[in-house]
């Protein structure tokens, strides 16, 4: 037997260290710790790596601090579109979804594609329909709304209206 290990991330990019308060940093570290613990608990109970990564990502999707699930950012149409994927190292089985909205945990949608279909990748309305059909937990738009993300969209649109480059690498964040 191997000593189990797990790693998680909650996104990378420009963190604007000058804006990071002690309180914010504490909240991020707390969210990361909870998510890691969710996966670690699975591994400690001799659970599978697939179950562990699912548990950790579900915890991150429920935390509005992170850009996935409940904390997802907005498109230029003021909508949210979520993508997720999962892959099992035992047999290279994989599942992915793109452009979905509604499932509380997009990672479970990806996992269902992997385990319940002969497909690897479902997108858009077909993927949403699949999620509803298999009974994944669906949440309304209010569940996913966060003022912080809406404000970020408005600021970015304002910047573009003022001549800011759409693809300015320093402004791309997600």
């Amino acid at each position: 037997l191997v000593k189990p290990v797990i790693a998680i991330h909650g996104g990378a990019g420009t963190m604007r260290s000058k804006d990071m308060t002690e309180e914010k940093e504490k909240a991020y570290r707390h969210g990361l710790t909870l998510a890691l613990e969710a996966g670690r608990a699975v591994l400690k109970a001799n659970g599978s790596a697939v179950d562990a990564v699912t548990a950790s990502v579900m915890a991150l999707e429920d935390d509005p601090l992170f850009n996935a699930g409940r904390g997802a950012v907005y498109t230029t149409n003021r909508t949210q579109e979520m993508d997720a994927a999962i892959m099992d190292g035992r047999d290279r089985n994989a599942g992915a979804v793109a452009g979905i909205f509604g499932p509380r945990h997009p990672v479970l949608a990806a996992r269902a594609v992997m385990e319940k279909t002969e497909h690897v990748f479902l997108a858009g309305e077909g993927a949403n329909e699949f999620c509803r059909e298999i009974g994944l937990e669906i949440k309304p738009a209010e569940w996913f709304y966060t003022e912080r993300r809406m404000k970020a969209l408005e600021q970015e649109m304002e910047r573009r209206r003022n001549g800011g480059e759409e693809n300015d690498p320093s402004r791309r964040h997600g």
Partner: protein
Amino acid sequence: TVGAVACDVFGHVAAATSTGGMTAKFPGRVGDSPVIGAGTWADDKTCAVSATGHGEYFIRYAAAHEIDARIRWGKETLEEAAQSVIKDLVKIGGEGGLIAVNAKGEVCLPFNSEGMYRAWMGQDGEIHTGIY
């Protein structure tokens, strides 16, 4: 974007990634997260990878599978392969990071951006977190 990679007691690895994309993205834009081989990858023989950052660059570089290939064919270590890919991405303008583990229980978390929200438990069983 969020993600997780793990190696269980049986030496099996897995990876998962989930994202809302990027703020003010064009509707319908898909980043690397759901693209198998770009932002997500797992194979017991090599590694499990979950990436985050400028998705288009990770797709163009087939970043996660590139790490697999460097280990499989180039005989690089997990650390060497992951660091090389993150370093190479800078050359084409790609910014971000990734987390990776292998079936031996090695963990690495390289990034080329200012920071990456991350946490890990290595073989010591301790929880570590980092931002910058």
